């Protein structure tokens, strides 16, 4: 009987052991899953944090560029700086390190940043980001307005070309220097901020949120010849936003206080411009021809009217800063270089709608207009109506037979010294840079730039 009772006690034990094994297996599975989950989530957090640190390093470099303050950086060479920030604490013994290297010795700045997160147990994650900063152009579109862009009449056409390849040479002449990037854009949120009527835009139209361009019998898109009425939805978007800063008149010492009506001004081949700072109205009569044969800056606190002609030679370039109304009539301004950026017209008024800038008559011209508070009108007719360059204004109006060719090269024009992101690359695998020293970083960065 005792043995019988012993066996019964044993069976209970076995039952308990079996249950304990089951519970143990289940608990082990729980723990394994929880451990795996913890490791994965920790690694995900570390990787995200490392990327954030790398981008924070780039922000630090942006600040240095913006303020031109490199006092907390190590100067490696001319325009080359390095910074190591190792005091980022995530708590519980987890720390972050940021290493940033910027080389702005060339035409564009290149930056590389490494973010690392490591804990006391030896777990870590590292991310590297490589970017470039290029000049920001205020002329990323052909026609940009704060308020409205309106085409009226027939045969108003906007398209594009590249001035680095020569003057505009369209399909009607069998040419090849033309393209379909004649973008028009408005930051306005008012209905039909862009109304092209019967006109044609061989390119894009960008409006404010929720708006669409107004099209009567006109067309927006890439198809040539333009089909009647409508737009290609791939060429229209409603997400346009843009900063349009006020004009800043350069602080220059004036060489002259009066701009002559005719004759020749400017010094061919000069490295510094001749500066005219004039208070009062400028009027060039029908018999006057003013030749600009070198770089000039003309600041006019008053109205500006051309009834004769202003001719910019192949050696000339002009920057006009005009506070009043500007009227390019008669034979207008002949920019013989055919490079629009050699004739910059800035409207300096800061009162909404108080300034008008008009191009009409035989005003065939290559020019760039930047007048944030002006109404710009471009009329067809005369002997031509062909205009090229880019316009930024409060409102823009084009009338019958006016053709405007946006110079896509103006996307690269350094307008106000501001920078924009050129490219952004996360460096992975073999493309990563060795951050051991500034020497290894420089070597790696040079290889990256060469590979672009």
């Amino acid at each position, binding site marked *: *009987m005792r043995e019988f009772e012993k066996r019964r006690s044993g069976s209970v034990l076995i039952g308990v052991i079996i*249950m304990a094994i*089951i*519970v143990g*297996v*289940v608990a082990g*599975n*729980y723990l394994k*899953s*929880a451990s*795996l*989950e913890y490791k*994965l*989530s920790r690694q*995900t957090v570390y*990787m995200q944090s490392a990327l954030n640190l790398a981008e924070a390093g780039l922000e630090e470099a942006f600040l240095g560029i913006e303020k031109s303050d490199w006092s907390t950086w190590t100067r490696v060479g001319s325009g080359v700086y390095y910074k190591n920030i190792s005091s980022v604490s995530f708590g519980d013994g987890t720390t972050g390190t940021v290493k940033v290297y910027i080389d702005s010795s060339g035409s564009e700045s290149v930056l590389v940043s490494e973010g690392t997160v490591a804990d006391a147990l030896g777990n870590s994650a590292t991310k590297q980001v490589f970017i470039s900063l290029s000049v920001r152009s205020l002329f*990323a*579109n052909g026609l940009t307005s704060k308020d409205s862009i309106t085409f009226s009449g027939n045969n108003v056409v906007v398209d594009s070309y590249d001035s680095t390849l020569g003057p505009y040479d369209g399909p009607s002449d069998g040419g090849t220097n033309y393209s379909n990037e004649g*973008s028009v*854009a408005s930051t306005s949120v008012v209905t039909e901020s862009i109304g092209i009527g019967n006109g044609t835009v061989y390119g*894009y139209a*960008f409006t404010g*949120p929720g708006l669409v361009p107004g099209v009567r019998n006109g067309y927006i898109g890439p198809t040539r010849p333009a089909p009647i009425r409508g737009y290609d*939805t*791939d*060429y*229209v*978007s*409603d*997400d*346009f*936003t*843009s900063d349009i800063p006020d004009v800043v008149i350069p602080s220059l010492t004036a060489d002259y206080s009066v701009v002559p009506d005719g004759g020749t001004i400017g010094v061919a081949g000069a490295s510094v411009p001749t500066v005219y700072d004039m208070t009062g109205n400028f009027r060039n009569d029908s018999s006057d021809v003013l030749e600009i044969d070198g770089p000039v800056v003309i600041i006019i606190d008053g109205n500006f009217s051309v009834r004769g002609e202003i001719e910019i030679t192949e050696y000339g370039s002009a920057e006009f800063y005009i506070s009043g109304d500007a009227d390019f009539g008669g034979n207008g301004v002949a920019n013989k270089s055919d490079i629009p950026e050699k004739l910059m017209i800035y409207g300096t008024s800061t009162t909404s709608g108080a300034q008008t800038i008009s191009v009409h008559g035989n005003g065939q011209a290559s020019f760039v207009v930047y007048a944030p508070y002006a109404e710009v009108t471009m009329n067809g007719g005369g002997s031509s109506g062909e205009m090229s360059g880019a316009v930024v204004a409060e409102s823009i109006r084009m009338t019958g037979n006016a053709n405007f060719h946006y110079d896509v090269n103006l996307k690269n024009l350094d307008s106000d010294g501001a920078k924009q*992101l050129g*490219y*952004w*690359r*996360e*460096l*992975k*695998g*073999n*493309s990563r840079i060795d951050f051991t020293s500034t020497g290894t970083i420089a070597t790696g960065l040079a290889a990256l730039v060469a*590979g*672009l």
Partner: protein
Amino acid sequence: MITTIGLRNRSRGGIALRAGYTLVELLIAMGIGGIFLTGAMTSVNMLARSSVSVGHYANMNASSRRALEIFASDVRMAADVVTSTSTNLVFEAYDDTNTLVTVSYAYDASADEVYRTYDGTTSTILTEVDDFSLGYYDLTGASTTNSLSVKEVEIDASLIRTVLSLENTNEIISSRFMMRNRKVSS
């Protein structure tokens, strides 16, 4: 010799007999035993289910984390958007050698899988996907259906795993990944 017998033991012919249980006693004992056994089996079953469920959740979390990491990395390198529907995204992105390659993400509802095609090579990045959609946002943060305006992308997906007729689901709503290399209209 001293023979110890139980209360119900009887002696017959010198042989000690152990008394049997009455039917009522047996029924009660079996009933109580059955209840305990059922409870034990239910507990074991629930333990097994929850154990497998935990494994499934861990698996779903791991696969979704991995998928989102790959997706985020691709999207950050995107330079242009070709197609942007709720179940299909095709874009051009820079690879490690700074070359533009075509990348696509597509949801196959019949196979319950999400595919990634990178420079012509297709792989499955999410399996047993019950629902999947892509959301697009422009530079201002507003939702958009226009490929020209797409600057940010968001994933909304529901993964599902079934164990012993019990469904485990895991909802993924990603953050909005920005196409850092993509220039939009501003």
